[in-house]
């Protein structure tokens, strides 16, 4: 399995050359990283690849790198697509780095895989990533009239507004959240070999 993945990686590196930023194999999975401008072309080429056609888009999601170590490399947002080739029984992860942090735009792959339709709507809804050429980029999961993109790292878990029934006006109203944000278990990153005292 792993050797087939490595063969595929070498073949893709040879085929696309500079258009791929990196192609790495880790944990038996191939990750191909591209910049936003080549994303659509490479997606199309992968779908129509003669030996390993990636007919299926299994998953597509947004990513926010703003508090991640990889952030130093630049782009805040990325779009990750998980592709599967049924003919060759191989998986591939295609990641497009979205350059503009204030107005992230990337080409839509809705015309390559129709399955991308809702996945892109979801990524737009949750991360505010724009998909150029999508055609029906509405919010999908959040409420009608929701403001903001909740899965961004700077969006609090408790949100900004809460909903309640107001007996005076006799209707459901939005008001600023009344619960204070709290963290029950702190986020901890341990250094290498933490807890290894060197003797059993």
């Amino acid at each position, binding site marked *: 399995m792993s050797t087939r993945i490595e063969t595929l990686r070498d073949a893709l590196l040879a085929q696309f050359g500079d258009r791929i930023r990196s192609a790495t194999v880790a944990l038996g999975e191939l990750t191909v990283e591209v910049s936003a401008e080549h994303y659509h072309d490479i997606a199309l080429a992968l779908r129509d690849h003669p030996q390993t056609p990636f007919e*299926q888009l*299994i*998953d597509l999601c947004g990513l926010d790198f703003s508090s991640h170590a990889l952030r130093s490399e630049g782009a805040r947002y990325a779009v990750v697509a998980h592709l599967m080739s049924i003919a060759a029984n191989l998986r591939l992860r295609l990641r497009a780095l979205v350059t503009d942090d204030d107005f992230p735009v990337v080409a839509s792959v809705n015309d390559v895989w129709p399955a991308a339709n809702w996945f892109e709507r979801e990524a737009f809804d949750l991360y505010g990533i724009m998909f150029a050429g999508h055609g029906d980029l509405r919010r999908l999961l959040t409420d009608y009239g929701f403001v903001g993109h909740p899965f961004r790292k700077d969006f609090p878990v408790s949100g900004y507004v809460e909903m309640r029934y107001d007996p005076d006006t006799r209707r459901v109203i939005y008001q600023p959240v009344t619960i204070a944000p709290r963290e029950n*278990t702190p*986020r901890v*990153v341990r250094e290498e070999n933490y807890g290894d005292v060197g003797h059993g």
Partner: protein
Amino acid sequence: MAEIRNYTMNFGPQHPAAHGVLRLVLELDGEVVQRADPHIGLLHRATEKLAETRTWIQSVPYMDRLDYVSMMCNEHAYCMAIEKLLGIEVPERAQYIRVMFDEVTRILNHLLWLGAHALDVGAMTVFLYAFREREDLMDAYEAVSGARMHAAYYRPGGVYRDLPDSMPRYEVNKFKNAEAVKRLNENRSGSLLDFLDDFTSRFPRYVDEYETLLTDNRIWKQRLVDIGIVTPERAMALGFTGPMLRGSGIAWDLRKKQPYEVYDRMDFDIPVGVNGDSYDRYLVRVEEMRQSNRIVRQCIDWLRKNPGPVISDNHKVAPPSREAMKGNMEELIHHFKLFTEGIHVPAGECYAAVEHPKGEFGIYAMSDGANKPYRLKIRAPGFAHLAAMDEMSRGHMISDVVAIIGTMDIVFGEIDR
């Protein structure tokens, strides 16, 4: 000349056939659907965002609540993702237990799907029959995890505890006399494996009963045959997986093609449809129940003969036994650190997928080395299926919309996440 108008109609979000909270905006020309626009998200709980604020192990119970009809399969994908990132091995016995409960879950899921689908289409009896069998399997869930539905039984590194030696029994009360209780307890006198063994020997006959009611039923066929046809090419392009893909004639099953746990040692067949219509998907799922039954039997045989550990002995991942924890300082520290701080997962990313009853259920997990995930994406099979609602229902009558929703096997817990 009569005036012809297109109607826009709201279906749901509180419609009994909408399987939860689906709001479907239908544009109709007479009774023919011109466009279907599903509005989802009414059950959106931001599980993925919540997981970012909790330790890896605290999110296991959230997985149950995604697809609340096939609880353990969701946990399975999540635990597999963590194990892949950590690079730890699961004990063999735990792998068999997982496979067995995955298949029990598949039967549970398909039973509910069959009952609900038949109810939508107008057959009441199947629902009652299906729930009779679900009750037994729920008892198996309860015996092993203590909960009938939201089990939280699979843990990173294995399963929480070994299979119990005794089944919970009925007791005499003012509604059940001693004779009735004795009859109910007949197959509960042995261990869980005996109980499941008894169930698997009875179950094929039950499936025959469902098939007698439905397979050649004229009304059932009139409602399902040639409804919601998906060609193999479209099924792939639309991201279909599981029975929806196999119903269109593509022999694709992760249990065979990319085997995980011990599925490569199991002997079972993959049913494949021919026409890609709702009736074929019905046949595929019914046959899957029979195949799952076979797998459960094989697991029972193996589990009877091979005792052993059921969770990893790496105490940075899995808790030590209660006994050791009470007696030894080292184990106590491990226990404390594990339940306060949690597992530290090495930085990296991975995608782990299982053949969930509904299709491919995948977890894309990204870690930056902390005790919490950096990003967790849940790939729910129903999401891709429901996205194809517009294409599948276009040109069909409004009553067929209900049949198409039924054939997709939709559960909103996983679609809205």
